[in-house]
């Protein structure tokens, strides 16, 4: 069961099927990579639909409500209805907006959010590009999403948008430092930045047990990186209306939304890969384990969102620089000393 249902086997079967009627080997390769890209985009867009529903249900349950329950069985078609509504909406551009920047920002935001999915090991040998700098690639690409936020904020010609955009830059840049340092502990233990090697190293022990502090720091910084509560100052509706998204309508706004949930999925997938053992797990096929772990992480992030109140901007900054950064640095040092002691005794 575990062997037959693995993504690698499914891909192999698909390749054999394509080879049976495509003449050229190169053509088969192109088709396969197109199928892989299609699968990744399907995951991103499907996850946005599912996660919106999940978020509304989780928020409702935490507030003792029952959440969406009218459209479709148990309200499962609610996000489909919302999507149709968003597509039908009028596209309004504010007066005095920086036209090209304003139109580019949501699209540019979506690109890094989708590009990071290249290095995720969904299953054994099921990884689009197993780069030798996999985790570095993730950090480098995901940090690109700072700029579109600022672009959107600046181009909207609106003070709320601009303040929101500035806050995004400040927040995401300062939380990236402890995030990288928390990941560094894992990279030190494994001695490689290749995702498949990191997952393979966790076959016996998950890194959450070896690097608990790094996990805590990672979860906190990841919450800040994807601008979710309690770090959602960017779009704090009580002060900034909706931050950089204020002036966007319809599908443009939906792209922001899509990128937001793609980012949530991405950081959860990284947490599952680095700390929770990736696709490692008994009985079930690897990709089911991977998605179960992602689901657990996403629930954790949603749980945070509906429990904690929003931080103030100065609290956010001082927490990032004065607590998380020293903590992550100390973790790196302790990991180094621990590794040295371990090598000394063994």
């Amino acid at each position, binding site marked *: 069961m575990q062997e037959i249902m693995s993504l690698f086997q499914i891909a192999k079967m698909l390749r054999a099927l394509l080879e049976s009627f495509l003449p050229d080997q190169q053509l088969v390769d192109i088709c396969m990579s197109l199928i892989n890209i299609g699968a990744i985009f399907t995951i991103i867009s499907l996850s946005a639909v599912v996660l919106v529903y999940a978020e509304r249900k989780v928020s409702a349950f935490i507030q003792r409500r029952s959440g969406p329950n009218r459209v479709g069985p148990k309200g499962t078609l609610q996000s489909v209805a919302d999507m149709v509504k968003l597509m039908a909406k009028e596209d309004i551009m504010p007066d005095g907006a920086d036209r090209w920047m304003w139109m580019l920002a949501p699209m540019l935001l979506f690109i890094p959010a989708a590009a990071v999915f290249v290095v995720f090991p969904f299953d054994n040998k099921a990884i689009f590009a197993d780069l030798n700098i996999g985790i570095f690639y993730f950090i480098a690409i995901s940090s690109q999403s700072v700029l579109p936020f600022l672009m959107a904020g600046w181009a909207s010609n609106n003070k709320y948008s601009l303040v929101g955009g500035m806050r995004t830059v400040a927040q995401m840049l300062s939380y990236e430092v402890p995030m990288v340092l928390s990941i560094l502990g894992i990279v030190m233990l494994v001695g490689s930045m290749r995702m498949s090697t990191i997952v393979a190293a966790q076959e016996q022990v998950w890194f959450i047990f070896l690097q608990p502090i790094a996990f805590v720091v990672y979860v906190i910084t990841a919450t800040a990186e994807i601008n979710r509560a309690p770090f959602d100052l960017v779009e704090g509706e009580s002060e900034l209306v909706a931050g950089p998204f204020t002036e966007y309508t319809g599908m443009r706004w939906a792209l922001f939304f899509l990128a937001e949930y793609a980012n949530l999925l991405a950081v959860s997938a990284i947490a599952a890969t680095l700390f929770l053992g990736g696709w490692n797990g008994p009985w079930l096929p690897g990709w089911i384990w991977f998605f179960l772990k992602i689901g657990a992480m996403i629930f954790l992030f949603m749980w945070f969102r509906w*429990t904690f109140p929003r931080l103030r901007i100065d609290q956010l900054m001082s927490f990032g620089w004065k607590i998380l950064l020293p903590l992550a640095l100390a973790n790196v040092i302790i990991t180094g000393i621990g590794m040295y002691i371990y090598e000394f005794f063994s």
Partner: protein
Amino acid sequence: MLGKGLLKGMRVTFKTFFHKKETLQYPEEKLTMPARFRGGELDLNTEKCIACGLCKMACPNHVIEITTAMDDAKKRHLKSYVYHSGLCLYCNFCVEACPTKAISWDKNYENSRYFRDELDVDCLAIAKQKLTKTISADDKASAEKDNTLKGGILDE
């Protein structure tokens, strides 16, 4: 310890996650209003009403319109009882003023109407309708037992 409050908060929200839902699925399920709820239309009991007009006098907005008529024994009878609910401020003075407790609130909170005229309620007609309805419902039960009772009640 730092962060203890965060864990406590998370425990609370996790508990409520599995708590019974408080939502009332409104159009299907409806709230029963408490005894002191004031709202809806006036429920007139024609058997108790002595047509004294005190409710009309008590009303600060002249919401209640009554016409009465004397019979041969110089006893007043109700000819019409119209309640303009659009003007009512639900102060409850009319209900308090009634010496025989003939009027009460029907505790209905779905008061929106399409037209203004529909806000004027002919309480007497409704009361009579209700009376015949309850009687016919009683009839069905009692008719099987006793046929002689039927005519007597309807004539009154």
